[in-house]
């Protein structure tokens, strides 16, 4: 009886072997990765299909129905693919070869590698309750991991949003906030704690997020959002903005920038027992200026610091914002584009009004009159 080495040598002499350069120049060849799932997940040759060696004979007919097709098999070093090539020859495949040196040599020679596009076992466990939902699944979870979301404010709305976005596995979360955690925040701002009193909110939130999910990269911006820094911050590549600002100048600034940078904004605002949520998606629905062309006078625009807010209300509204953000990131469901959701915590009632694009909107309308940043403080003080 032959040893394994002798058998491998004999099989290799019976099949055709190609090297990486031949594969680079292959014309229409189907490249089949016959390694195990965990090996495939760590990287593979771009364009290859994955059929583990153990399933090769049973699955090849689906992947390559035409037996005259040129097929190149590869594994880690060229052994499993040699046996696989022999088996496909016996199945009647006429032009099968094995990649000499396998994926190991391919990488060593510096050829292109497709990075992992599936979830690691750890991530499968962490996100298992998402993976069980058909509308999310592995593809949706990968989209979340690839999504970058910018939070304006790490306060009442930003706290629940940052926690749920992080828990959901949103890969990159930016947080803009210049403030320091103080005792009056802890009644509702659940990203912060006694341990972080007196520290910057962005650092406190970063610490909480990292303790919850190390998959998330947190990008802190310890600065107040202004006309001067917003282009730089949005230039860092954000797919979505979750707006939890506490003042009108910032709301209008975020709106104008989001229209010009074409980034959707999930809007939430709260006061006492009442909240408002909607999504402004440039080109696809109204913007904040379509909804509210002008801010109210100062006496009708008290902040929560002046008027108060029920502590759980930002939890509800921030969670609704997060729901919209997650749907937008995955691309499922119906969002609040064109609808303003109103929530009354005292009567526990939701209501909804329709909001339309304003063709005369000075920013997103047909003939915009505002095309660069204005003095937002002055605009809101009129």
């Amino acid at each position, binding site marked *: 009886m032959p040893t394994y080495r002798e058998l491998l040598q004999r099989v290799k002499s019976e099949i055709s072997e190609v090297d990486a350069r031949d594969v680079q120049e292959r014309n229409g060849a189907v490249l089949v990765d016959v390694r195990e799932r965990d090996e495939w997940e760590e990287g593979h040759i771009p364009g290859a299909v994955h059929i583990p060696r153990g399933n090769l004979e049973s699955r090849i007919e689906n992947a390559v129905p035409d037996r005259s097709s040129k097929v190149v098999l590869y594994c880690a070093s060229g052994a499993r693919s040699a046996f696989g090539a022999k088996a496909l020859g016996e199945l009647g495949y006429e032009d099968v070869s094995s990649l000499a040196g396998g994926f190991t040599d391919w990488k060593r020679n510096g050829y292109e590698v497709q990075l992992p596009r599936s979830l690691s076992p750890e991530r499968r466990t962490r996100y298992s309750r998402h993976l069980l939902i058909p509308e999310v699944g592995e593809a949706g979870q990968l989209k979340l991991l690839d999504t970058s979301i910018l939070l304006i404010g790490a306060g009442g709305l930003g706290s629940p949003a940052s926690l749920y976005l992080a828990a959901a596995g949103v890969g990159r979360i930016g947080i803009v*906030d210049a403030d320091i955690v103080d005792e009056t925040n802890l009644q509702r701002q659940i990203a912060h704690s006694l341990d972080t009193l007196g520290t910057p909110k962005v650092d406190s939130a970063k610490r909480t997020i990292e303790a919850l999910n190390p998959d998330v990269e947190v990008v802190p911006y310890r600065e107040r959002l202004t006309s001067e820094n917003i282009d730089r911050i949005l230039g860092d590549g954000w797919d979505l903005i979750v707006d939890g*600002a506490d003042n009108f100048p910032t709301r209008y600034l975020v709106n104008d920038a989001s229209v010009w940078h074409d980034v959707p904004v999930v809007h939430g*605002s709260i006061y006492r027992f009442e909240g408002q949520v909607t999504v402004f998606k440039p080109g696809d629905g109204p913007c904040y200026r379509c909804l509210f062309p002008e801010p109210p006078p100062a006496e*009708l625009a008290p902040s929560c610091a002046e008027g108060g807010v029920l502590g759980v209300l930002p939890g509800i509204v921030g969670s609704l914002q997060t729901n919209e953000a997650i749907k937008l990131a995955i691309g499922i469901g119906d969002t609040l584009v064109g609808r303003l959701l109103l929530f009354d915590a005292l009567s526990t009632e939701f209501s909804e009004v329709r909001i339309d694009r304003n063709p005369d909107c000075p920013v997103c309308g047909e003939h915009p009159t505002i095309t660069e940043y204005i003095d937002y403080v002055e605009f809101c003080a009129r």
Partner: protein
Amino acid sequence: MSALATAKVRIPPVLRTESGGAREVEASGETLRELMEDLTSRLPELGARVYEGGELQPFVNVYVDGEDVRTRSGLDTPVRAGATVILLPAMAGGCGRC
């Protein structure tokens, strides 16, 4: 007077001082203009805020049965009996600082 449509008008929290604390008040009118006139006669301070000079103030959105009256007929928008009218100024609050 009995023929006039009576609608429920929802008052936003920032205008409840002007409504005597009421979250919802009734007002009558076949059109929004008539309804705002009636509302102003009942609650002059509220009227002064949102309906100054017989015009809707631009910072207050008004919805009749969920539709922004700016996309309908403004003050001429008809109001059916039992309609819900929402007065809605923007709220800034996010209760953080940024």
